[in-house]
C-alpha cells in the first residue's frame, strides 16, 4: 500500500468507526457519507491527519434526478493531501431548510466556497462569520442553481416576427418534443405543427431584450 492508500484507508476507518460514516465510492474516488452534525469534527481530524488542502465545497440538488429518493441536497467537501497525493470526498446529505455546521471558523478557505453554496442553493451554514450573497445581484431573490429556479431565457426575436423560444427549440433538438418556431401574433396562415396544435404565440410586450 502506498502512502496515499494508507492515508485514505486510515481516514475512512476513522470516519466509519467514530463518526458514523458510510463509504460510497464514485468512479474509483473515495467518498464517505457523514451526518451533518459530525462534519466539523471530521474535517478537524482529517486536517490533523494530513489532508492539508481544502479544494472545494459544493452542493448538488437532486430534485430532478431520475429515481432519487431521500434528502434534496448533498454538500460535497473535497480534501486533498499534498504530501501523499491522496484525495478524499466527504458527503453530507441535507434536507431543504436544514442547516450544516460551517467549517469556516477552523479553515478560512471555506469562506467563499460556503458563501457561494449558500447563494446558489440556499443551504445555510451555521457559524459562518459572514454568510450573505456572493455572486448574484442584491436584488435577485431566490437561489439560482436550484432545479426549480428558471434559467430565465428570453425568446429570440427575429425581424420578420418569427421568434424562437429556446427551451422548446432545445426540446425539439433532443427529440423529447416536436419543437416549435413561434410567430408573433399567432400562427402563419396554413401552418400547423404535427400534433395539430398552433405554434406558441408571443404576447406583445414580451421578447427582445431583457
Amino acid at each position, binding site marked *: 500500500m502506498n502512502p496515499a492508500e494508507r492515508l485514505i484507508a486510515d481516514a475512512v476507518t476513522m470516519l466509519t468507526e467514530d463518526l458514523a460514516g458510510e463509504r460510497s465510492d464514485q468512479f474509483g474516488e473515495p467518498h464517505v457519507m457523514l451526518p451533518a452534525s459530525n462534519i466539523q469534527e471530521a474535517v478537524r481530524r482529517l486536517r490533523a491527519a494530513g489532508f492539508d488542502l481544502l479544494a472545494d465545497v459544493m452542493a448538488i440538488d437532486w430534485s430532478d434526478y431520475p429515481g432519487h429518493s431521500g434528502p434534496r441536497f448533498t454538500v460535497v467537501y473535497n480534501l486533498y493531501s499534498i504530501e501523499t497525493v491522496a484525495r478524499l470526498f466527504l458527503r453530507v446529505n441535507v434536507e431543504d431548510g436544514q442547516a450544516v455546521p460551517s467549517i469556516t471558523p477552523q479553515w478560512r478557505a471555506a469562506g467563499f466556497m460556503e458563501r457561494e453554496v449558500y447563494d446558489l442553493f440556499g443551504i445555510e451554514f451555521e457559524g459562518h462569520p459572514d454568510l450573505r450573497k456572493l455572486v*448574484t445581484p*442584491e436584488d435577485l431573490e431566490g437561489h439560482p442553481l436550484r432545479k426549480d429556479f428558471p*434559467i*430565465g*431565457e428570453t425568446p*429570440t426575436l427575429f425581424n420578420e416576427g418569427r421568434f424562437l423560444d*429556446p427551451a422548446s427549440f432545445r426540446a425539439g433538438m433532443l427529440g423529447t418534443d416536436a419543437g416549435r418556431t413561434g410567430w408573433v401574433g399567432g400562427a402563419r396562415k396554413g401552418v400547423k405543427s404535427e400534433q395539430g396544435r398552433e405554434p406558441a404565440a408571443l404576447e406583445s410586450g414580451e421578447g427582445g*431584450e431583457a
Partner: protein
Amino acid sequence: MAMKDLFEKDFMELERDGILFTTLSKLVAWGRSKSIYPVTFGLACCALEMMQSTNSRNDMARMGSEVFRASPRQADVMIVAGRLSKKMAPVMRRVYEQMPEPKWVISMGACASSGGMFNNYAIVQNVDSVVPVDVFVPGCPPRPEALVYAVLQLQKKVQGETFDKDGVQLPMVEGWTRS
C-alpha cells in the same frame, strides 16, 4: 499674398496656396472624431482583445485613441467589452453618466450587443437597454481589426456621415447626439 486675394481668387487656387474652407461645426467634428479617448471598461474576454488592439500589431492609437483613460471624466467613448451582468449594470450606468458630453458607446462583442450565448437570468441581453449604443461590433470576441474598424465607423459617425434606416443622410449634430 495680399488680403484682397482672398476675395478675388478662385477657392481651388487658394487651396493650392494652403487655405482651406470649412464650417465651424465640421471643424469641431473633425477634431472630436480624431481624438476619441476610450474609458477602461473591459469586462470579460473581449477586454483582452481590446488590449490586443492597442498593441504594436493593431495599433489603435494611430486612429486617435491614444490612451485609455481610467477616469470617465476624461473619456469620450465607452467600449463595453464583455458580458454585462445584471449586478454590474447600475455601475455601468453610473460610469456612463459621469462621462461629459459629447460621448458615445461602442458595444463590443456578441454578449454586449445581444446577450450572446448567455441567455439566462444573469446577463443583460442588450447593453442598449442601459446606455444608448452607437456602434455594435459582432464577434465572440471580435478581432482587434474589427474593433479598429468600429472605431473608424464611429469617427465617421461623429463627422456627420450617418444615415437613417431609409438611407437618408442625417444632419451632422442629430446624427450623434442622443440623450
